[in-house]
């Protein structure tokens, strides 16, 4: 009897901080912005309950165009990050020798330890009109005048891929690390070509890692702020920037909360779809150590 009582007590003691954290910092605040987004401002300090904020979002093409643009660039970045990251992950997990494997993996993680801001700052120094690339190209005589490489979509995509590719490589390496080389050998032994072995053995094996990587990358991308704003400049048209403007610049919290809800609904939908289509679940993809 005594022991089950202490068991219950310790359960309560452990559950309390968890409940406070989730309730006060996650659940209630989300409900809070949901509630705020349904408040329609009639006059200063006078509000009405309604969907008008959402209608305004739909009626203003610039708003939902920004969302669509954010969405499709995020998809593009996810695909590019997979294409760029897969060969790297495969090299680290399967080709590199034991000793250099750990070193390469750590090397991949180095940018992770450095602030987003520093990375974006580095790109600005490289790509702007007076930047390193421009100077080098001029010095080599390839161009006559300074060239501005910042503030265009290609740069934004390149910068985003740079910030997120590590989150693609890490889950890929950890999945493929577990794959026995004998599987590949068996694939060849049974008469498979290089391409068949890749398509029928390696990729299916790496699938959980691919899904996990894609979800994390997409989320990070759609929610990123610094990279598109700094590399894209004034007309980057990024959705998180809209939220920031509504909240901080225009002090229109109701509209900002509405945008926040739209972004959250959109990313949740994307994650849910990704999980459904591939038959994975959230706990196994995100929480894998």
């Amino acid at each position: 009897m005594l022991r089950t009582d202490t068991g219950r007590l310790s359960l309560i003691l452990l559950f309390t901080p968890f409940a406070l954290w989730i309730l006060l910092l996650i659940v209630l605040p989300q409900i809070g912005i949901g509630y705020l987004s349904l408040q329609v401002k009639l006059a200063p300090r006078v509000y009405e309950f309604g969907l008008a904020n959402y209608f305004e979002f739909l009626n203003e093409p610039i708003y939902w165009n920004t969302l669509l643009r954010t969405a499709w660039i995020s998809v593009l970045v996810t695909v590019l990050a997979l294409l760029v990251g897969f060969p790297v992950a495969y090299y680290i997990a399967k080709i590199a020798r034991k000793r250099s494997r750990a070193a390469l993996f750590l090397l991949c993680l180095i940018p992770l330890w450095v602030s987003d801001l520093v990375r974006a700052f580095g790109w600005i120094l490289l790509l702007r009109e007076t930047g390193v690339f421009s100077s080098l190209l001029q010095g080599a005589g390839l161009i006559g005048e300074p060239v501005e490489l910042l503030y265009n979509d290609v740069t934004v995509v390149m910068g985003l891929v740079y910030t997120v590719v590590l989150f693609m490589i890490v889950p890929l390496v950890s999945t493929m690390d577990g794959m026995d080389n004998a599987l590949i050998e068996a694939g060849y032994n049974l008469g498979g070509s290089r391409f068949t072995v890749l398509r029928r053995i390696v990729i299916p094996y790496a699938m959980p890692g691919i899904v996990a990587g894609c979800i994390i990358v997409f989320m990070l991308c759609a929610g990123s702020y610094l990279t598109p704003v700094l590399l894209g400049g004034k007309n980057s048209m990024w959705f998180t920037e809209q939220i920031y403007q509504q909240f901080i610049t225009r002090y229109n919290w109701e509209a900002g909360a509405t945008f926040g809800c739209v972004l959250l609904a959109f990313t949740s939908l994307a994650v849910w779809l990704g999980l459904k289509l591939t038959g994975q679940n959230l706990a196994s993809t995100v929480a894998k150590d």
Partner: protein
Amino acid sequence: MNVAAPNSGFLRGVYGGYMLLFFLYLAAPLIVAGVFAFNDSNFPALPWNGFTLKWFFGTESPKIGMFHDSRLLRGIGNSLYIGVIVSAMAVAVGTCNAFLFERKQFPFKGFFYILMIVPLVIPGVILGISILVFASMIANGADDAIGIELGMLRPGIPLVILGQFSFLTTITSLVIAARLRKFDTTLEDAALNLGATRFRVLSTITLPFLAPAMFSAFVVAFLVSFENFNTTLMLVGPDAPLTITMYDRMVKVGSTPVLNAVSFFLMVGSGVLALLSVLVNRRKTEE
């Protein structure tokens, strides 16, 4: 022969070249950001005017080094303050969560586990605004109802700490739970059998085993807190941490080599911390 590798020498060369290019791509902006901290010029750009440490230690305008720039120093101070407090909180709650989910059975455990992971998949900006909105609602409510002004619920360091804590706790929970899962519970039985009290078992057996994971969870939380931008941006008040101060400087003043100096300082700092965490874990797991 490694069957996983391409078997023609040419393809192997192409693959190796690709890897080299990739690491160059990873390193280029970091190198540039770091190197220009040592260029004796008023702009972080070519040409190279010679080596200098003025951007770290300089005292005369325009070359005031980062260690004599009071706003940057205050930013570093705020970041350290926030980072230490938020990491300690996140490790404490993360340890509780690890025990909760690894050791205890309770109804709807699967659902609560998902809830624990959810903060990782909510965009940081949204975490920031939702906490801002919720805190303001409470503060306004308190103001209207009982006329008390709850200053700590207005944008400022306390809210930044809460905002970062909201998602860092998920990271620390996962790191510590992964280590706890590897713990052999018969060690606890053995200690109990040898006459130890439950508290003594926890402090002499279980926590020492978890210590390296708690340390690396602290380091990870500290680094992420130090470099966090999105959530912090929404919650920041007059005492801005370093990333926000840098961003302000970048947008308002434009880039100056003192920002390179700060970048260099950040890279070295986080590199050292991360290395320390790797070493601690390697030594502990080899036993």
